[in-house]
């Protein structure tokens, strides 16, 4: 009689469960990126010789690729050595892409599994129906040692979205709209289930945007129900065994929210919190210095296509820096074959290699004090993309492209008529 979270945890712990209870679950996939260096340190301290299963650990370099400093280079070297030492089968070096995208592309994000990652946006894999959540490095060392983890069975809220999206309105606007209503802690400790026609009609890439950003309202996991589209994706990716686990009809939800997609308009999350959501009209005209299209939130092919539609034959405003970061090698290659990269270059954009890029303010496009950026990423906290005196607005790829052309925050709808 469970929600999706309850049903997966029941399966993983081998007993029936109810919210609030602590359960012990076996882990199917354990993902880390460069912070595996810290995990290794704790793992060594625990003192086990071998990891519990070298086929279930996935390590993907994405946060600072190629290494931007000696410290990072040393960390990456340490991880590469560890991968060899332990025979870790699934290791992706600097030429693959952002962890959450790579997990999906390589078939690790699968329905019904327990997936933990040392990255908060691990919730992204919930778009495939996985119980996927972020943990810290110490806890990951524990998983590497034992293959097990404790969870408090979360309560679940259900979010229904029905109706058709208007032109110029995307999954990004839908989820920003929802976060604006539920606020930054609206789903804290909870599981979220997305349901409704709008979600069913969304592409896999768009569903990933929802699960990705749900983290910003505190969600522990954020599910889209697996369906035919999911199945097709998994088969194309030769994903390992998976099970379609769904919620029961009698499942109990602590809250239910209904949204009408046709009423949602382009949204912007304003500095310095993701729940500071406004309609684009309210901030239109705000001058910008940088525009970034990329990240695990909106760096997929459909995002680049939308941006290219608007940038085609146009130029980025003088004095504004447009940075494009494809989410993965695969996206990069496809965008190149489709001619999207040409469009960006002609417009005056700078294309960076797949990876997190400027999203976390570590390299590749750091903001100076007083500067303003509009970005397709998922966080606009103070200092997130550079100086603590800079300002980050979050929006859809189309809105960022339109803003890059005008040099100020602009409504994408006028370019899409």
């Amino acid at each position: 009689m469970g929600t999706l979270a309850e049903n997966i945890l029941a399966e993983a712990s081998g007993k029936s469960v109810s919210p609030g209870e602590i359960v012990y679950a076996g882990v199917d996939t354990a993902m880390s990126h460069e912070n595996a260096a810290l995990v290794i340190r704790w793992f060594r301290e625990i003192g086990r010789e071998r990891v519990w299963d070298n086929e279930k650990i996935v390590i993907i370099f994405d946060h600072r690729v190629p290494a931007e400093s000696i410290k990072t280079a040393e960390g990456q070297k340490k991880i590469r050595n560890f991968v060899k030492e332990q025979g870790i089968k699934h290791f992706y070096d600097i030429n693959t892409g952002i962890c959450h995208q790579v997990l999906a592309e390589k078939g690790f994000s699968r329905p019904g599994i327990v997936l933990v990652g040392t990255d908060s946006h691990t919730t992204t894999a919930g778009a495939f129906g996985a119980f996927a959540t972020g943990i810290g490095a110490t806890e990951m060392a524990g998983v590497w040692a034992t293959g097990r983890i404790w969870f408090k069975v979360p309560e679940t809220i259900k979010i229904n979205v029905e109706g058709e999206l208007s032109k110029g309105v995307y999954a990004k606007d839908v989820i920003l709209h929802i976060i604006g209503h539920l606020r930054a802690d609206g789903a804290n400790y909870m599981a979220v289930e997305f349901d409704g026609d709008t979600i069913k009609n969304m592409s896999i890439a768009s569903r990933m945007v929802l699960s990705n950003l749900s983290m910003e309202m505190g969600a522990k996991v954020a599910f889209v129900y697996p369906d035919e589209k999911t199945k097709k994706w998994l088969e194309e990716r030769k994903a390992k065994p998976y099970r379609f686990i769904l919620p029961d009809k009698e499942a109990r939800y602590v809250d239910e929210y209904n949204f009408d997609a046709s009423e949602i308009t382009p949204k912007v999350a304003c500095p310095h919190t993701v729940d500071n959501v406004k309609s684009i009209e309210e901030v239109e005209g705000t001058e910008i210095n940088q525009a970034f299209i990329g990240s695990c939130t909106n760096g997929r092919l459909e995002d680049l296509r939308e941006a290219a539609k608007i940038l085609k034959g146009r130029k980025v405003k003088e004095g504004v820096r447009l940075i494009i970061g494809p989410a993965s090698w695969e996206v990069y290659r496809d965008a190149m074959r489709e001619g999207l990269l040409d469009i960006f270059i002609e417009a005056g954009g700078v294309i960076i290699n797949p990876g997190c890029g400027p999203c976390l303010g570590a390299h590749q496009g750091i903001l100076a004090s007083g500067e303003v950026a509009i970005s397709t990423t998922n966080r606009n906290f103070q200092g997130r993309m550079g100086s603590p005196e800079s300002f980050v607005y979050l929006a859809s790829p189309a809105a960022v492209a339109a803003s890059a052309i005008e040099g100020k925050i602009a409504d994408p709808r006028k370019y899409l008529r």
Partner: protein
Amino acid sequence: MGKVWKFGDDVNTDVIYPGYALKVTNPDEMAKYAFAEVYPEFSKEVKEGDIIVAGKNFGCGSSREQAALCLKYVGISCVIAKSFARIFYRNAINIGLPVIELKETDEINEGDELEVDLNEGILRNVTQGKEYKIKPYPEIIRRIIDAGGLINYLKEGKNV
């Protein structure tokens, strides 16, 4: 006993520990980056045993464990908040930094002296002469905290 450093709602991990310092691994150095960009004086003025008291959703944002580690390394003995973001909550416990959920944090002022007794489940505000009951931890969390964190717990040969 520790002196209170008061914070508001939604204190995020980018503010607690800046992204550019994530490659730092040395504890003393990590301590220096606690709130480095936003409250540069914090790490210099904080004393061993001091306590952070905050509003709701403390530690929201990234999974970076450094946000909990830097507080421990800088000498913070305990974080008390109306609620925590879930990854921060787990990280703190796993590295052996006690975290306490308390609805009444608005009543506590900056600079108050607090005494925390986890065994008795009591928080005393010595300055104001008030007492609060703390909700007991679930069994597994208590065992991890008692061991001084997850690493020690696993070192003792136990399993989750």
